């Protein structure tokens, strides 16, 4: 039972890590970036290439995946994304889907369409079991690692957003670019760094998730739905929202599949629909209101 709970948490955290970048670009920047998965894929392939071709150790690959994806994000932001912030959401959808198609085809061309695998270091492969009987808690080391990385990331992000002015400057720029610039906020830099950071997070997510989810050129399209679900259910105004949503969905999904396997595929969708009809702005919205 505890094992199931743990697996649910780990799965939720994985979803979160993958969706986190999207929560940043879509939630905070209000840019519908469906190419998010492509950045995640970039992170995954960077890791694969570094490990397979250059023999870089896995742990070192993670920051490199982050940086690589962030760099790609930054370049694309400067060249392509910037004019699109002001355009309607539908344009953004069109654009980012187009970009995804291109990414998918390019990766296919250069890397082939077969699945890529990441060989984890030995210490991440094991498993620890505590207790016995119904209360056994089995934890895969890799899953434990994901949970830890995720927790650290959340804390760091939360800190940046709530303790520094960056968060409010970003939201101000999103709310009204024109006026924010007129009031002295360097909107371009704010957007550039946020976008790069969001892409970096996606890359990191891809590097971490490739092991569990598999990695092939169709990755961005295959998992897009999951990223979107997490962000929609979590609400787009904070980091904790998507985190809690991801945990909720992860646990519900794993537990549901364990206890009522017949309902397997339905649980997540039903849960999402019910939540969204009940709270259309997402489960956890920024409320304000306390004077």
């Amino acid at each position, binding site marked *: 039972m505890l*094992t*199931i709970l743990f*697996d649910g948490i*780990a*799965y939720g955290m*994985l979803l979160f890590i993958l969706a986190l970048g999207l929560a940043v670009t879509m939630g905070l920047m209000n840019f519908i970036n469906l190419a998010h998965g492509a950045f995640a894929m970039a992170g995954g392939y960077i890791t694969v290439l570094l490990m397979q071709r250059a023999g870089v150790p896995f742990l070192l690959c993670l920051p490199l995946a982050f940086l690589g994806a962030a760099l790609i994000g930054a370049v694309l932001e400067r060249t392509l994304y910037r004019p699109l912030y002001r355009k309607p959401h539908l344009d953004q959808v069109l654009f980012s889907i187009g970009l995804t198609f291109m990414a*998918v*085809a390019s990766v*296919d061309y250069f890397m*082939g*369409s*077969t*699945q*890529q*695998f990441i*060989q984890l270091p030995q210490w991440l*492969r094991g*498993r620890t*079991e505590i207790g016995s009987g119904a209360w056994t808690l*089995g934890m*895969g080391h*890799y899953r434990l690692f994901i949970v830890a990385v995720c927790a650290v990331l959340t804390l760091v992000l939360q800190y940046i957003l709530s303790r520094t002015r960056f968060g409010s400057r970003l939201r101000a720029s999103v709310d009204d670019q024109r006026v924010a610039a007129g009031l002295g906020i360097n909107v371009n830099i704010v957007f550039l760094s946020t976008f790069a950071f969001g892409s970096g997070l996606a890359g990191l997510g891809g590097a971490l998730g490739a*092991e*569990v*989810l*598999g990695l*092939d*050129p*169709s990755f961005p*399209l*295959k*998992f897009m*739905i*999951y990223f979107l679900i997490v962000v929609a259910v979590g609400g787009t105004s904070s980091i904790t929202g998507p985190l809690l949503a991801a945990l909720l969905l992860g646990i519900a*999904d*794993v*537990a*549901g*599949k*364990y206890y009522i*396997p*017949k309902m*397997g*595929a339905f649980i997540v969708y039903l849960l999402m629909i019910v939540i969204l009809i009940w709270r259309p702005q997402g489960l956890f919205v920024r409320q304000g209101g306390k004077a």
Partner: protein
Amino acid sequence: QGAPFKIGLILPMTGQQATTGRQIEAAARLWIAQNGDTVAGRKVELIVKDDTSLPDQTRRLAQELVVNEKVDVLAGMGITPSAMAVAPIATQSKTPLVVMAAATSSITEASPFIVRTSFTLPQVSVALADWAPKNNIKNVVTLVTDYGPGIDAEKYFKERLQFNGGKVPESLRVPLRNPDFAPFLQKVRDLKPDALFVFVPSGAGAAVMKQFGERGMDKAGIKLIATGDVTDDDQLNDMGDVALNVVTSHHYSAAHPSPANKKFVEAFQKANRNLRPNFMAVGGYDGMRVIYEALKKTGGKGGGPALVEAMKGQIFESPRGPVFIDAQTRDVVHNVYLRKVEKKDGQLWNVEFDVIKDVKDPGKTK
């Protein structure tokens, strides 16, 4: 010198099934390269179309190939619904349809013009169910993807295993879209069977094996047995040590020890950046052979009904071993091998250790 003989090859070249398309196209081109593009005085022309695994696209492409290009043979078909959607066109236009990938048993019944050179899932699952009890695996949990082929695999495996005195305490079905196998594997672990039987589409196989290992199920004394899709040759080498010792049953292994296969594998790898051929490739390769032979037999005249007649009953030595196209069902009859993943020269291979000869599709015998 007559008009060119056109083969319309419709395959998923993009999307999640893209590897299927790549393997088959590469194999078909290899066949042409090896055997020349002129048969019985006619030039063979291959037209490749991408249907992105959408049956209505497959159908339209087939329609256009037949009406506009006037193709002599339709071929390919990555997934069952595609084959099913094209079947009426084959019938209506009297064009042979050579199915090279789709594996649901009932496909060949959808049109008298369908000939299959791939395999059927019941063939390989039944073989595994025959082998298991003999090797002290009596209590088996099944885990299949919840769609047509998966359910086929589950059904035939279970029936045959029970017939052979085994037990299936639980049959788990995984949704098509399923990123994480943890809950299912945990359930299996808690049930503690002798073995877990798995069928999942080739991409997901690696994830299952990994998580199987990670969960320490092998150490808990549970064996992993599967159909050959799970240790797909296309990816096997990249899966790493988790795949070692997994027992699977399938009709083709790139490690099949025959001169014909050696030659095939070498040529294929040379032509395709070292890509290892898998069972899809051999389906395409043999499909081309069947078409070539049929054309030869008709003396280059072609013609739908004549071609199909000429395809029926062909017997030949394929890279997978001896193959026979059943004249009655137009379905493929071949050996099913039991293989174990082993490391040879630093690479992982499906090494065959047992064989069940001339397996007909059990789906047709009812």
